[in-house]
């Protein structure tokens, strides 16, 4: 989670999922950091600094922020291609994430992965994956390994509503349930898979009910409310950690921007987007903390300046970093296998 200053209000906060004022402010700070980072990424894409596909997390910040704050820092996270928010919420260095989007050597995968494939194993952040639902079996395997080792570490798998009709979704849920694997699935139901509305392709639109059909504990939560996400994740993660088998959380949310930067958004109306924008998770929490006296307008302005700096410095760092050397092309295809071109590597 991003750094944040003291607010002076350290008392337990009503309706704040049992969190202190500082903890609540920290959640707000993380959401603001993600938002600003994503806005900066969009700007850098428009300036031709970022290429390929770029899927922004704007609108869904509460899901990653609330959920990941409720996990242990060593719990595995496996996410899909809309994963900048999950990485930042886990504390992956924004500079190195931005450098990755730029395809630079200082990026989290040295420029190899780009936006859709962030990895930071030191933060138990085991990747962004670009094949819909293809990462779900991996989460099962991570959970299986921890169960096998007898540890109480869990695997958390973020997925989209579009993943639920793939065979791998069903195979993963069934395996996790029948083997009681310590996996928490968090489905971000933002009502669209690219331009296709959920009800046009899903016979059962309540995603959590599908998970129930596999005999696992499943719930829905308000994904526009960071505290609701925190509370539900904390509760479900506790069950999973206690060995009660997998659990499934459907987060109802909305992406404010297009599917990717190339999306003309023919499939939804501006009115619909505007209605969801009134539920902006950042504005809501801000209002609430101001009303409750946890925050002052002054402090909010400071926080905005802090996250502006984080995003700006990330972009500067990315800009100044060198591209990966061409000689690195054939490195790491195999573990420690020297390639003909580069000879043996120590």
């Amino acid at each position, binding site marked *: 989670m991003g750094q944040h200053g003291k607010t002076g209000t350290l008392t337990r906060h009503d309706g704040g999922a049992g969190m202190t004022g500082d903890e609540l402010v920290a959640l707000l700070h993380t959401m603001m950091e993600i938002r600003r980072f994503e806005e900066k990424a969009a700007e850098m894409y428009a300036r031709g600094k970022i290429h390929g596909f770029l899927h922004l997390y704007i609108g869904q910040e509460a899901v990653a922020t609330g959920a990941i704050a409720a996990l242990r820092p060593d719990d595995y996270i496996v996410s899909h291609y809309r994963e900048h928010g999950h990485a930042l919420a886990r504390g992956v260095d924004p500079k190195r994430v931005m450098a990755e989007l730029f395809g630079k050597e200082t990026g989290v995968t040295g420029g*190899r992965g*780009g936006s859709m*494939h962030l990895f930071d194993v030191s933060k138990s952040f085991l990747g962004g994956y670009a*094949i*819909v639902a293809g990462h779900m079996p991996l989460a099962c395997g991570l959970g299986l390994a921890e169960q096998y080792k007898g540890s109480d570490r869990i695997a958390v798998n973020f997925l989209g509503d579009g993943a639920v009709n793939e065979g791998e979704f069903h195979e993963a849920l069934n395996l996790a349930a029948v083997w009681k694997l310590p996996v928490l699935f968090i489905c971000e139901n933002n009502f669209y898979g*690219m*331009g*296709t509305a959920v009800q046009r392709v899903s016979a059962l639109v309540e995603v959590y009910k599908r998970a129930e059909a596999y005999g696992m504990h499943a719930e829905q939560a308000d994904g526009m409310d960071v505290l609701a996400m925190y509370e539900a994740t904390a509760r479900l993660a506790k069950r999973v950690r206690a060995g009660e088998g997998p659990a499934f959380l459907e987060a109802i949310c909305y992406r404010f921007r297009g599917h990717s930067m190339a999306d003309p958004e023919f499939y939804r109306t501006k009115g619909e987007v505007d209605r969801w924008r009134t539920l902006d998770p950042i504005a809501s929490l801000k209002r609430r903390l101001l009303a409750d006296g946890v925050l002052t307008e002054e402090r909010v302005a400071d926080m905005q300046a802090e996250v502006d700096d984080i995003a700006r410095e990330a972009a500067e760092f990315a800009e100044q970093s060198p591209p990966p050397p061409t000689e*690195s*092309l054939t490195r790491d295809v195999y573990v420690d296998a020297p390639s003909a071109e580069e000879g043996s590597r120590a």
Partner: protein
Amino acid sequence: MPEITYREALRQAMRYQLRNDERVFLMGEDIGAYGGSYAVTKGFMDEFGERRVKDTPIAESVVVGAGIGAAMAGLRPMVELMTINFSLLAIDQIVNNASKLHYMSNGQIRVPLVIRMAGGAGSQLGAQHSHSLEGWYAHVPGLKVVVPATPYDAKGLLTTAFEDENPVIFIEHTALYASKGEVPEEIYRLPFGRAEVMRPGADLTLIGYSGSVHQARRAAQQLAAQDIDAEVLNLRTLRPLDVDGIIASVRKTHRAIVIEDDWKFGGFGGEIVALIQELAFDDLDAPVLRCSGADVPMPYAGALEQAALPQEAGIVALALRLCEGEAA
């Protein structure tokens, strides 16, 4: 002849089929309301309705499987798999069902199904979105594999694909959708298994398909400046393959280079090399070479990706090496 894009050429072929054959329908992820991820089917849902143009769940296996079933029952479906990368989730249906039902049923069943997908790299989409797996499909008896390089190819080959009685894997190149070329307004058919001599030449043959044809052509221009007259062959289909066309060209030029985005090891280029040495060994003045993609998962960073793909400079260098031998 009007100049249109590769995308528009595909659209014309599809629209013709939708208008003229009631058995034809299209289905795929985001081909309707969204307009297709490469805008190939844009507006078709409005024009032809949801009975003919269906948005599907993200579920490649069942979509292809249902396409096979519908073809077995007498329809002529076109399934769009968005990209070749996602075809991997449907490969069981394609290989275990589509390719062999006609044979397994002793000819009782036909699967006239077109499966369209975009392949190729070069757009910085990373390792899971940059595959060139056409060689995998070409390996499978019972499938036809089509790889158009130009708008003219796209329209003529897609029309032939729709009218074929077999499953056809139709692989478009992501980098070519906006490319332009002359295309007749009326409908026409290009035969499968017939390569095009894009540029006649006497000194060596550059063999390409889809995106690599254009690199071959540009390399041929550079070679011309150095007094090397390269013939450029556009394969158009990998299966059936125009073996006679390839051999005829090599008999004339005595040298050949295959250019492909695909990984070199076990790639389709190796098949062409093998055929040439089997059928025209005595006509060769030099070993047949390949200019292929590097054997690595595709990296995102722009310069690394370019380093992993065949480049004109690489083709020219190989060609000079082959032809130097002659001068010596």
